[in-house]
């Protein structure tokens, strides 16, 4: 009897042990799931782009970010207790994402896109935090900001916040589909697309009414086109597949990414699930508005324009037609069409001029690991020839852009390449 009792006890103990072990196992699996989701979300937020210096340790910060106000250096977000976020709680982390404040209440410079990240849910913020706590800590003190007077006074951020910052998580629009709302959440929140695709005013802010209306990216001299105007990068006339191709692989039947957008696809968008890429596409297509503004008018005299365009055709046929086609039809997706390509026609000619001068490769992605590239023509074409060929492609084949001057071309020769 005793022995039977002992045996039963043993079995019970064993069963309890198994239950405890499996509970612990379930908890680890749940934690792993959260960390995995956090990694995915950190990619959707492109944290690495700013928080990793070129050739530096991942997430150890100190990447210089030149701004019109001086140079900012990103912070170390590895879990090192002294130099990183090792001592932070999930509450602290949420406060930076949601309110733009350090754990001690200090104000964060808005180069950190907290005006977008404020839309991120608490659960997603916690997942990102769990992921960041799981990566190897790096002991590396972040570099001090180097801002000019008066911008080195953090109290000024209060003014910026009053003008440009509305705190609050994303609220679903019940009139729209779940997919549209998911896309809006990603584009307006973690994706922080508005940081570039909205006009930046002199105070370094974006006003709500100008959201996604495009703008010249300060210091980089690339133009981030409007996501609402179909005359720019508005995607109203694009198929969902072309949009998701562009976001996930960097190339599409309608055009390829280049400049700063190549970095975004490389670090962030290529890792999106098909569902999330599609949701973003649905939302982006939805916010595009048919063009209401009238066709832009050229500022160049007519004679100068026609001389440029006629020289431009000669330059084009000699240097460009073999890849982009005699009629600008391209060989998509690798050699983008130039005819009916919004990126060529839009009012700002900065991007087409820079592509001719600097060339470029789309990013290598899982979907397109060996991209085809365009040669830089800066050393082969004169300012006049660059202006001519850009004027030609902006006006040929039914394109509705305006001619550009040799002066426009010359000014962009000194645009930074990093």
């Amino acid at each position, binding site marked *: 009897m005793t022995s039977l009792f002992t045996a039963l006890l043993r079995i019970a103990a064993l069963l309890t042990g198994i239950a405890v072990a499996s509970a612990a196992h379930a908890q680890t699996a749940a934690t792993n799931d959260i960390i995995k989701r956090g990694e995915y979300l950190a990619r959707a937020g492109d944290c690495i782009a700013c928080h990793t210096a070129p050739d530096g340790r991942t997430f150890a910060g100190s990447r210089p970010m030149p701004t019109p106000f001086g140079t900012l250096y990103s912070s170390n977000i590895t879990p090192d207790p002294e130099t990183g976020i090792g001592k932070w709680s999930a509450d602290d982390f949420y406060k930076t994402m949601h309110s733009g404040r350090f754990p001690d209440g200090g104000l964060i410079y808005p180069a950190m896109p907290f005006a977008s990240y404020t839309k991120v849910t608490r659960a997603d913020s916690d997942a990102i935090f769990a992921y960041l706590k799981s990566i190897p800590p790096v002991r590396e003190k972040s570099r001090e900001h180097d801002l000019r007077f008066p911008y080195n006074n953090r109290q000024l951020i209060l003014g910026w916040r009053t003008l440009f910052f509305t705190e609050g998580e994303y609220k679903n629009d019940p009139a729209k589909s779940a997919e549209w709302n998911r896309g809006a959440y990603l584009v307006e929140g973690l994706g922080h697309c508005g940081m570039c695709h909205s006009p930046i005013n002199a105070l370094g802010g974006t006003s709500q009414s100008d959201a996604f209306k495009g703008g010249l990216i300060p210091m980089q001299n690339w133009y981030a086109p409007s996501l609402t105007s179909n005359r720019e990068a508005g995607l109203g006339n694009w198929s969902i597949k072309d949009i998701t191709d562009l976001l996930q692989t960097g190339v599409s039947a309608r055009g390829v990414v280049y400049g700063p957008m190549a970095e975004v696809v490389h670090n962030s968008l290529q890792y999106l699930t098909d569902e999330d890429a599609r949701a973003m596409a649905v939302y982006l297509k939805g916010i595009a508005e048919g063009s209401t503004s009238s066709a832009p008018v050229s500022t160049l005299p007519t004679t100068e324009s026609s001389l440029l365009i006629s020289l431009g055709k000669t330059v084009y046929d000699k240097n460009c037609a073999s890849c982009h086609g005699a009629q600008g039809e391209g060989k998509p997706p690798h050699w983008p069409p130039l005819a009916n390509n919004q990126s060529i026609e839009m009012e700002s000619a900065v991007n087409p001029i820079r592509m001719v001068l600097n060339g470029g490769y789309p990013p290598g992605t899982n979907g397109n690991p*060996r991209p085809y590239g365009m*040669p830089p023509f*800066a050393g082969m074409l004169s300012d006049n020839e660059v202006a001519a060929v850009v004027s030609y492609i902006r006006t040929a084949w039914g394109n509705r852009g305006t001619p550009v001057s040799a002066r426009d071309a010359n000014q962009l020769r000194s645009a930074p390449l990093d």
Partner: protein
Amino acid sequence: MAARVEACTPCHGNKGEGTTDVYFPRLAGKPSGYLYNQLLAFRSGRRKYPPMNYLLEFLPDQYLQDMADYFASQHPPLPTPAASEASGEVLKRGEALVTHGDVSAQIPACASCHGPALLGMEPGIPGLLGLRPNYVSAQLGGWRYGTRTAKAPDCMQQVAARLTEADVTAVAAYLATRPAPANAAPVPKGSYVLPFACGSEPE
């Protein structure tokens, strides 16, 4: 692959043979490991030349390896050396440094690492033929001033630091006078022993 590297050809030539611009080097036939190391260095920004840094920034390792293999496998003929503008004395100093080095200044001969025929050695040591004097002196200058670096131990940095300005001119001028051999391929790995450790050519 030729179509994928078209972005390289206006400066480096259709087959990597170089162009009329004296600062853009020949790539064809250099050891693939050397070319790959340079592509990695340009991508990370360790080797600074903004147009190259910009083009390579978002390209994966494997693709850079493919590009390196492609140009390594091209063998367009080496150019006929142009008549040198340097004086006989300068060329003599150049020849001495290239073939014998300078023991008193502790400068090893170029040939001791780049090979008796100066064709380089697989996988990491480049040949020195077919390069213009301006390019060679710009690179040696880069090493002397620390703007060009390679994997530690950075043997070229050690050597270049011992060269005077005049030495650089002499070496660059002499190298450009060397005639092209029929077979300009680099010799296989381990064909000869290096005089000292080189990070680009691990044992």
